[in-house]
């Protein structure tokens, strides 16, 4: 297994991608480099071959030797970029970005680890039902940055929806209020194109949470380069593009259905009974997008939370304290009831 270390041209210490500078920086002599500088400095003797497990068995552990301290490191089958657990030397496993695993696009990290921690603390403070033990800084240390594998789909969608639209109007007649509702059969047909619809390519990363941290800003998307991986964890995909299509269909069908519902004549209320959307001209590209992951364990259950490493958007399973929820409900109910009664009394007495 080929491992690459991007080294400082000045002192040969490991160079990692600096988010704020958007350049590569040596942690020891603080020299900074452009991507091209690192490519030219990568010498063939710095690439070493290590034992490698079978390509098709991604669940197995693979072994590689750290080029800095010589330690033998085990990685999971999908790990594409990692650190030496002894010397923290960043390493990129070249073979896991080659061939069918070579990504087309990449979005670099824009949010630093420190910013991500601050964002998490601000976010969790607003979750009033989260247990207080998850609001402390200690928990934040467990955040890790990761380049996650994504499939980006371009496609053309065509379809129609059928259903019933209703418009109501009311008037009074004597002691009665008469409500008239007119019912219409509605059908909307249409087409739309979609660009870079992301579907995550990892079994380990829950789809719902990955969709929750979207969207990424595609204005900053660039061609993939392995140098960006240096200093971060990265995973290669274990959900192939054919399997990812399974998640693409309902998403795009939902998008077109919503667009069709909002088009044409408007109704007070609508019920859609039939939806038929077909996708064609599907093109796919493999990409690596930056995310931060935090896993909290509360009462034996894992709660995963993710932060978009580009935009800072947070989404996830914050631990939920039933006791906090009950206390909040009772306090709000009683205090609000007393305040409303007092307000009504004051208005009445005045």
């Amino acid at each position, binding site marked *: 297994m080929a491992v690459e270390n991007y080294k400082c041209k000045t002192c040969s210490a490991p160079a990692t991608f600096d988010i704020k500078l958007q350049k590569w920086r040596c942690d020891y002599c603080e020299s900074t480099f452009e991507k091209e500088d690192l490519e030219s400095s990568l010498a063939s003797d710095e690439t070493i071959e290590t034992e490698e497990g079978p390509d098709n068995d991604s669940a197995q552990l693979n072994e590689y030797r750290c080029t800095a301290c010589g330690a033998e490191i085990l990685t999971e089958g999908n790990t594409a970029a990692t650190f030496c657990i002894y010397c923290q030397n960043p390493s990129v496993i070249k073979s896991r970005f080659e061939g069918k695993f070579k990504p087309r696009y990449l979005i670099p990290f824009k949010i630093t680890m420190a910013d991500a921690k601050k964002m998490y603390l601000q976010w969790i403070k607003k979750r009033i039902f989260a247990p207080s033990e998850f609001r402390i800084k200690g928990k934040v240390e467990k955040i890790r940055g990761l380049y996650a594998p994504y499939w980006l789909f371009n496609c053309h969608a065509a379809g129609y929806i059928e259903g019933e639209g209703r418009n109501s109007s009311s008037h009074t007649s004597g002691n009665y209020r008469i409500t008239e*509702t007119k019912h219409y059969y509605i059908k909307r*047909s249409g087409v739309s194109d979609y660009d870079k619809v992301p579907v995550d390519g990892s079994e380990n990363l829950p789809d719902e949470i990955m969709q929750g941290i979207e969207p990424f800003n595609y204005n900053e998307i660039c061609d993939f380069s392995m140098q960006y991986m240096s200093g971060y964890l990265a995973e290669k995909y274990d959900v192939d593009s054919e399997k990812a299509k399974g998640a693409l269909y309902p998403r795009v069908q939902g998008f077109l259905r919503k667009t069709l519902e909002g088009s044409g004549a408007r109704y007070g209320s609508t019920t859609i009974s039939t939806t038929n959307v077909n996708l064609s001209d599907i093109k796919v590209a493999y990409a690596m997008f930056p995310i931060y992951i935090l896993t909290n364990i509360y009462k034996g259950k894992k709660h995963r939370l993710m932060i978009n490493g580009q935009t800072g958007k947070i989404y996830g399973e914050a631990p939920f304290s039933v006791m906090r929820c009950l206390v909040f409900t009772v306090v709000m109910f009683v205090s609000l009831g007393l305040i409303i009664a007092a307000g009504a009394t004051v208005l009445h007495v005045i």
Partner: protein
Amino acid sequence: MLYKLNKIQTVLITAIFFFCVTFDLFAVTDKKRIFDDANLLSSTEQTLIQDELKRISVECDAEFFIVTRKQLENQNIEQLARSIFRENAGSNGSGAVLAISMRERDINYTAFGSVFDRHRKRLDRIREQIGTKMTSQNYYDAFMLFAKLSSSFGFWANYQEFMPMGFMVSAVLTFITVIILIFIHKGINTVDSKTYAVLGSFKLTNAIDKYLRTSTTKTRISKSSSGGSGGGSRSGSSSGKF
């Protein structure tokens, strides 16, 4: 500068003062306040209620009466209540009358002057609460409740009155708030149908809107019979059945 009174003036003023006070007290104490023509109360109960109405009349500087009839004759229940007040209240323009007619099962609560000002928004509620006791034939309790509700003027009395409504509104608002907070506990999904759509690529190729039918629903509007009266004095009345 003090004006010095002679003996005759002092005696006269004292006599006038005592005459006025005594007249006023007698006017309050001697007045008949319960007209139980329908014989709903025992004599003991009548005495107790008469005493209670006297007490609150002095306390509130208002006139309170209860009138019961076996049946109405040539007047409606509100007219009965107003005529009782007109004939018995004297110069005091404030007070309340509870009128009952057993054959028609009519109940009326009419308030005047300052009592109306305090209770104008809850005439229906007072009448309904008394009506509930009447329905269950707790006549004594019903008339005592009339005395209690009519003389409850302060902030606390009104506050207690509004508490059930306050807690009902609070329950709805709390429920909505907690549901929203639970819903956004994970965060908010900001991807919509336009996020990944190529700008300008959507084309509506066909739109059909075909009229099917019209459905009509008819709902009865519940109306309260309470309302203020015109003219110079302030009063309001609430009538219903028990």
